[in-house]
């Protein structure tokens, strides 16, 4: 099912525009954390939050990361988030929208970066 928000995100994605979500942690279901390993399709290292679109389990998952400044301070550079790279994230699904997750951490190779 394609929700309105997802349709908007897809539209913006098609237009080549970043669609960084600005949702607080409260909008995500912390009681149901998910671990996902997938391939990066698209990256936005933008304010207010970075976002990656992960191809995983036959679908595209929008994964909301942290503000760029925080990621840099914790040693995660934009060059490490490459299209085609395989990464693992742990995060919480958005309550109101399918296929959107807010990541608690992201693992690239041996490096795990906390995002909260």
């Amino acid at each position, binding site marked *: 099912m394609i929700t309105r928000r997802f349709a*908007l995100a897809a539209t913006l994605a098609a237009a080549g*525009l970043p669609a960084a979500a600005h949702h607080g942690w409260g909008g995500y279901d912390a009681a149901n954390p998910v671990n996902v390993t997938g391939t990066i399709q698209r990256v936005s290292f933008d*304010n*207010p939050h970075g976002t990656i679109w992960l191809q995983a389990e036959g679908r595209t998952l929008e994964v909301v990361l942290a503000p760029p400044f925080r990621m840099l301070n914790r040693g995660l550079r934009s060059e490490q988030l490459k299209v085609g790279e395989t990464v693992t994230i742990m995060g919480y699904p958005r309550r109101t929208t399918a296929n959107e997750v807010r990541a608690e951490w992201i693992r690239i190779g041996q490096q795990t970066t906390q995002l909260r």
Partner: protein
Amino acid sequence: MEHEAHAWLAAIEASPFAVLMRESLWLYPLAGVLHVVGIGLLLGSIVAFDLRVLGAARAVPLADAARWLLPIARGGFVLAALTGAAMFSADATHLADNPAFLVKGALILLAGINVLLFHLVLWRGEPVAGPLTRRSALASAALWVCVASAGRLIAYF
């Protein structure tokens, strides 16, 4: 109607300024810092003035309190409004869906109506005596505190 609003928001988000707000590493955090500074100036000065209207610190003449505090409140509001608009542009479509943001917008509207009521009707170089003036001052303090609170809560929805 809703479709039109979304087209508008998407256009704001696609503007060169909004792109700059997103892509610059430090512009968005800087706007966030200055936003808080603006809120501090606005809230501190307006609550002090409202308390004076309500009868606190009678040793300070009301006209002096107004002359000192209201320009600080205006300056704080302008700073908060400009930096808020800048941050809004970066993320307009999502913020328009955020319940705390919508509540904040409605509260700012009410606070603005109260400002007009106070300065156009209840202020003649000094406040017009009466219960409406006191209620307006009380509403001002309460509304601006709630505006700041709702703003903080945007990050939790």
